[in-house]
């Protein structure tokens, strides 16, 4: 008995349980229910209520290490946006953004954009690449797009791209979508796009940024996708099960395992203290 409790008290027990639960759910997915939260619902509503031909700016600041927790949820969002007849302009404020987005634009991601018919680069979507400068850069991008960026990611002057003639300042942008992970820049983005320029803003963020973003909901940020959880809700409400729903099963398991471990820890702690277990 004492040995068993010592084993449970050691870290090995929780490590083994974690690996066990993760493997179990990967091998045998249960198809647990998904509840679509209010923030996700309003995120989708904002995109679907836009008129055809609207201009969207996507701020893509995902890092390599955080890709599983933030990048994969953004894929479904990018795909959803691309399915509608919008003009999509994408820009990265972080140096690791381009390599990751290239996978998506090149069709290597979980959703294949190359299969989508009718999407032509330069006419309905443009990628501006990585631009240094953080918040200051976004301010100047909003005031004068053509003055801030000269060439797109592939080296074409942006004046030659037909879509970019429609976008000159922040007034031409109807919606801004923030994809953010790891960096503490959500406040800066809200300051620039919502407070200064008064644009409609929605955010697709990693769960570590969720509390920071929730402060602005629903006044400044109109909708939030919360990491893989939000991605799963997105896929569920679009009726297209994908990697996010597959990933949300083990997560339910792991989070409940965590709750169980905390309760177990307290029970054992008090039993020992009261002398119930010797």
């Amino acid at each position, binding site marked *: 008995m004492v040995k068993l409790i010592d084993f449970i008290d050691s870290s090995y027990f929780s490590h083994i349980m974690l690996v066990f639960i993760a493997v179990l759910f990967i091998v045998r997915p249960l198809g647990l229910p998904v509840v679509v939260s209010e923030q996700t619902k309003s995120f989708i509503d904002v995109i679907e209520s836009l008129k055809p031909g609207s201009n969207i700016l996507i701020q893509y600041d995902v890092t390599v290490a955080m890709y599983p*927790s933030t990048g994969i949820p953004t894929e479904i969002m990018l795909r959803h946006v691309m399915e509608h007849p919008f003009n999509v302009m994408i820009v990265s404020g972080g140096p690791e953004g381009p390599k990751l987005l290239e996978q998506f634009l090149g069709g290597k991601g979980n959703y294949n954009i190359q299969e989508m018919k009718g999407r032509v680069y330069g006419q309905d979507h443009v990628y501006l690449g990585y631009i240094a400068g953080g918040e200051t850069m976004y301010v100047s991008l909003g005031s004068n797009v053509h003055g801030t960026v000269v060439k797109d990611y592939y080296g074409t002057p942006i004046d030659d791209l037909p879509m970019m003639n429609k976008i000159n300042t922040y007034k031409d942008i109807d919606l801004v979508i923030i994809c953010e992970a790891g960096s503490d820049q959500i406040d800066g983005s809200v300051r620039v796009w919502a407070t200064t320029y008064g644009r409609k803003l929605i955010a697709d963020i990693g769960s*570590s940024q969720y*509390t920071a973003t929730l402060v602005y909901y629903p006044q400044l940020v109109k909708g939030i996708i919360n990491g893989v959880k939000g991605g799963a809700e997105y896929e569920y409400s679009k009726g297209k099960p994908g990697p996010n729903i597959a990933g949300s099963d083990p997560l339910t398991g*792991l989070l409940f395992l965590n709750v169980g471990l905390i309760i177990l820890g307290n029970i054992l702690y008090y039993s020992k203290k009261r002398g119930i277990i010797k």
Partner: protein
Amino acid sequence: MSDIIGIIIAATLTLIALSQLFKYTRIYRIAEMSSIAAVVANTTVVAVITIITKSYTPQLIIPTILGLSYFSLFAGKYRWISRYPIAIMVGVGTGITLRAILQSQFIEQIIATIKVFTTFEPFNFINALILAAGVISGLTMYTFTDKYSKELNAVRIIGRVFLFIAMGTLFATSVYGDYTLAYNRIKFILDFFTGKLF
């Protein structure tokens, strides 16, 4: 071919790094040394290239000379020369920090707390009061005077409760992303052994 070798190296290093969870073995040092070498090499290459390309700019001649004075660290007695570049760096860092720290972390927080008070409707009002009381008692927890210690200590405990509730909440919202990463690595290893990666 180099892709396959890359995947094999990646999977091996992942397994070695994960082995640290259960027992520290010497083999773990391979993972450690590989990543240290890669990181240091990367930063060094970037630094050298930047120094070579930028040092000729007239504006940067003084910092280049100051930067070279760092090498006095290896000269024992004349170590103090390296304090001059350090003094500039610390001055810049302190100045940059002091600029906006009160704006975003002090005044805007006060404003946000005031704005929660919207109506006298009981539910909203009590919530707003809880928020304000939490902020005030939390700030009181951080006072350092030894006067009125009895009265202040009672408030300090309340403040501590609020701070810890925040810790619990932030833990619960943040682990979510970390578990996603853990689960993805386990999946990577499983995919490697079942041959899905090749």
